[in-house]
């Protein structure tokens, strides 16, 4: 497996609070990385730095061996991002939003976007502002997947949603994995979601990764559920 992304010595503070501290991570292509951390431990900060939304204070991010500079946008065409609260232009229609996004992504798959809308029962004529949070999440996923990303970042997208909606979302991620072998970084504090799809487990605590290990190995070592493993690691750290 080849290396898709490398993070070296990444650090970020907000005021006096150090959120990320000298963080290192290597991401191999085609794998699912589960990023666990309590609320406020920097999962979203890491996702936002990778997406070029905020700059890091120090350190490097290399994508396919090339260093990414803040403000650069070309690499983002190969990234998909579904945040906890997707920001959309509320006055746009669903179709308008898709057309708007299509212009930015050279690999945009119109057929796929249309098929996904139908599968999710999203009306292209609906105004984005009228959609429920669950429907917005689905729309976020439609947009992210239509761009045929090589690297998909999911930042706690399912928190606050009901169980059937969350399971439906996971199923769609699984279909995506089976069809395209997309590399995924799935940040969450909901451990149950993760243990079904994670291959490599990352635990972010105190600004560092206190765990970066194959999930099966971690399970075999601890002989416990992911929930217990997580609580154990975080309270010991």
């Amino acid at each position, binding site marked *: 497996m080849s290396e898709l992304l490398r993070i070296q010595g990444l650090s970020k503070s907000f005021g006096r609070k150090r959120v990320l501290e000298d963080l290192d991570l290597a991401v191999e292509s085609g794998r*699912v990385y589960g990023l666990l951390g309590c609320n406020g431990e920097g999962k979203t900060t890491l996702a936002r730095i990778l997406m070029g939304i905020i700059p890091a204070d120090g350190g490097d991010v290399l994508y396919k061996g090339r260093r990414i500079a803040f403000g650069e946008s070309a690499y983002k065409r190969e990234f998909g991002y579904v945040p906890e609260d997707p920001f959309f232009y509320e006055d746009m229609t669903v179709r308008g939003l898709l057309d708007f996004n299509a212009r930015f992504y050279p690999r945009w798959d119109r057929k796929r976007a249309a098929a996904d809308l139908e599968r999710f029962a999203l009306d292209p004529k609906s105004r984005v502002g009228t959609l429920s949070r669950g429907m917005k999440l689905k729309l976020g996923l439609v947009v992210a997947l239509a761009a045929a990303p090589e690297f998909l970042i999911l930042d706690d997208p399912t928190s606050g949603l009901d169980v059937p909606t969350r*399971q439906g979302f*996971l*199923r769609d991620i*699984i*279909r995506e*994995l*089976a*069809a395209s072998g997309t590399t995924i970084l799935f940040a969450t504090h909901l451990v*149950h979601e993760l*243990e*079904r*799809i*994670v*291959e490599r487990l990352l635990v972010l605590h105190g600004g560092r990764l206190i765990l970066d290990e194959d999930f*099966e190995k971690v*399970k*075999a070592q*601890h*002989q*416990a*559920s*992911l*929930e217990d493993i997580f609580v154990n690691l975080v309270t010991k750290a």
Partner: protein
Amino acid sequence: MIRVDASSFIPIYEQIKKEIVRLVATGQLKVHDPLPSIRDLAAEIIVNPNTVARAYRELEQDGLLSTQKGRGSFIADGAAPEASSKLKAYLGRIMDEAIAEAKTFDLGGDAILGLFEDRLRRSADRRRGGRHE
């Protein structure tokens, strides 16, 4: 048909393997029966497709499945006796654990056997009782 418990510490691919072994050993899956595609089973039970692929691959190595390119996976010839012996080995391991535990309480062979017989009787009673409900 196939169920997994994602929060169990038993790896999910092992659980999938055991489920298929159980279905073959109990005759619910027969020789040459097709299995769901990796993608379909993964979506159905909500697990990573790579996990299903690993279970299928290992079952193939064990001679329980045969996979033909473009046609999917099938229960292989001679899978039934192989599945029965695997299931017996699996149950044997659980019994071994119970026996080892019993020995820490200084129970002898007769006492352990008595316990097994007692549990068997109770489970048979429960089943008989169930029919009258």
